[in-house]
């Protein structure tokens, strides 16, 4: 079994998690723009995140964790994402795959992985394959040997554990938790998306990686049975979008207060007093507060489904998360574009790098298509139809 070497602070409860996130956010915000511009990976920042104990804060209490609620975890994610949305996204797979251990992990998996999470170890992920879906995936676990090639593997470059989705000898979906230093495992720094540039979402290649039985998690059970795995993942994505929206609006406030020039016909001597400007801003502020409320509401449903999983509670959680996701998506896109309109011509200078909010929003909100989410919401409200169970709702 792997030796635990890292040491992290132990977070005791939800309030502490929020405080820690706020402190980290202050730190992460400072160089976020520069990291994005120069595509510098946030190495020290992820170390700080790891040391803060946030990676272990969802571990169940009987394993020594704080078992913070999903409402809290989504707020933590939004706070971090406001400071640097790439850093907000890096631990998203971590939380999903640590929570998966809670749901379907074996006793030995729970003991090992929870201890590692509490120690500040990061779990990455390797699921997507170019041009393939779940059924056509070519990543296989034959006996004890794993082979495959994944891309968009957010966080894996920093990870201590790289959970890799594969099919086993029986054709069942499994998740193989591979240590980063395993022989045959390569993690490539080849992510070149136009936004979320420093998420280290590169490729993962497994060539004849030797695996032991205890490393194999019964992934199929996460979807065969009603579990929060899908809505949980989407909840955190929603929080990231909300964080991006907040970041854009925070820059908007700074610019309008300090830099924007009043328009010659406005009859006011400060851009921030122009009612046509404040009206546009006010509309976005309402959307922001609505989206925040919807994120909390969705977190509450996920908490309920986590405590009492059933077809109905999990379905309701998926629907509530889908609702929040659509609002957060639209707000993030609108705020990051409107920012320029109110901040004025100078805001388009590359030196200010304000476009990163739009690039981040546009890239991250495509993670799964929003276009079918209103259908899922409408079908549930109208026909009581439960949504399909997979990672995208």
């Amino acid at each position, binding site marked *: 079994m792997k030796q635990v070497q890292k040491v992290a602070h132990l977070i005791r409860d939800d309030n502490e998690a929020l405080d820690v996130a706020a402190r980290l956010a202050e730190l992460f915000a400072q160089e976020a723009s520069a990291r994005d511009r120069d595509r510098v990976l946030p190495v020290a920042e992820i170390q700080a995140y790891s040391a803060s104990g946030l990676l272990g804060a969802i571990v169940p209490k009987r394993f020594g964790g704080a078992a913070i609620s999903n409402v809290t975890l989504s707020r933590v994610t939004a706070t971090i994402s406001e400071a640097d949305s790439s850093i907000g996204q890096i631990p998203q797979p971590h939380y999903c795959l640590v929570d998966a251990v809670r749901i379907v992990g074996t006793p030995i998996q729970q003991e090992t992985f929870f201890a590692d999470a509490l120690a500040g170890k990061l779990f990455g992920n390797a699921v997507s394959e170019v041009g393939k879906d779940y059924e056509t995936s070519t990543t296989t676990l034959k006996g004890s040997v794993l082979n495959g090639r994944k891309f968009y593997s957010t966080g894996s470059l920093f990870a201590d554990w790289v959970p890799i989705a594969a099919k086993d000898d029986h054709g069942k979906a499994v998740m193989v938790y591979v240590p980063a230093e395993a022989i045959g495992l390569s993690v490539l720094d080849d992510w070149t998306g136009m936004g979320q540039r420093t998420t280290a979402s590169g490729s993962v290649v497994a060539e004849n990686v030797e695996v032991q039985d205890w490393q194999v998690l019964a992934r199929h059970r996460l979807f065969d049975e009603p579990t929060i795995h899908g809505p949980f993942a989407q909840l955190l994505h929603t929080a990231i979008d909300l964080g991006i929206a907040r970041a854009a609006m925070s820059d908007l406030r700074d610019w309008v207060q300090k830099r924007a020039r009043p*328009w010659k016909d406005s009859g006011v001597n400060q851009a921030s007093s122009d009612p046509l400007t404040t009206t*546009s801003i006010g509309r976005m502020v309402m959307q922001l507060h609505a989206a925040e409320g919807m994120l909390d509401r969705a977190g509450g449903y996920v908490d309920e489904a986590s405590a009492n999983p059933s077809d109905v509670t999990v379905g309701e959680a998926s629907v509530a998360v889908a609702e929040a996701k659509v609002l957060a998506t639209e707000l993030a896109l609108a705020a990051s*574009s409107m920012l320029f309109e109110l901040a004025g011509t100078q805001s*388009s*200078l590359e030196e200010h790098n304000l476009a990163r909010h739009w690039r981040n929003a546009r*890239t991250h909100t*495509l993670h799964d298509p929003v*276009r079918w989410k209103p259908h899922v919401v409408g079908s549930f409200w109208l026909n009581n139809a439960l949504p399909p169970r997979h990672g995208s709702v």
Partner: protein
Amino acid sequence: MSKSENDAFWLDKAKAVGADLMRLDARRHHEQAPPTAELDLLKSAGLMSLAIGRENGGAGISWRTVNEIVREITAADGSVGVLLGYHVISVVHLRREDPTRRQALEREITSNQFFLAGVANPRDDDIQVEPLGGGYIFNGRKSFCTGAAFADRLTIYGRMAETGQAALAYIPANRAGITYHHDWDNLGLCRTESGSFSVENVRVQADELTIEADDERTASIRALRTPVNHNIFTNCYLGFALGAFRAARKYVGEKGQGWQKLQPAAEDPLIVTQFGDIWVELQAGIALAERAALKVGVLLEGYPNFDEKQRGDAAIDVATAKIHASRAAISISSKIFEPMGARSTHNRNAFDRFWRDSRTHTLHDPLIYKVFEVGDFALNQRYPEVGPYS
């Protein structure tokens, strides 16, 4: 409305240039290098004399078709289309010259396929002109000098130090004393080089200078400015949107993914309706822009004789079209990603260029004050006053 044969000929020619531009690597849009190869394509097709009459060797096409060509070129390459648009604006404003000189300049442009850049940001006012000998001397600095770095001829707007009159020099771009600072580093229109330049003791001959008098021609030229310029801008915005739409259509057809098991992507009903919404938004912009171009065409034909009503109606139609086109460009260039999906964000595609270009140029003047201007007409039946932005 059907097009004349000559207009159709030039439009086809421009579309062929557009197709050539599209064959170049998309990633060049993010580079800061000058678009020399691209401008050469335009010049060899004769597009520098688009807005010049046949009597002076130009294309002799309608103002509406000039605008459509700017839109098509912009759809193919945002920076190049905007450069062509500013060039057209500079050519149109040669109407300030007396007829003989205008004819000579237009013929020179036609035969040499000169690319013009004009330098006149109305919110700055920082180039001074003083008489020297029989000529003049220019000193100062300007920002937002789109295309000046690789123009053949420059129009420089200055102010007479003594009288305060506006003075326009039309000179070769390599005249001694002109320095380009190559400091354009904005999120969009990367290859337009819209940075700053300075003039230091630049000598301008008397016959290269036009001093604005307080006469009818000056008033007419001023009245033309916003309708002409904003009509072109509108078609640039529609070009960004059109380029985005076409890129998305191609990508979805070739690489799109439908939801769940819906294949091909182009049959996903929600993808189809997304395209339907994009189409309606885009076409409304085009219909408004063409209507505005017909009205501006009337002003150009009548110049310098048009009345306040003609000018006012044209200005309102142009403003209406510009508002819609600004919103459509920003919205469509962002919406296209949704049917294309996550993988489309790979930087090799550079699909963000349409949004970057839209977001950059639509900041030219605040949209909400255009809405105010149009609303003031709609509610109070007041035409906009002639001004640098209205």
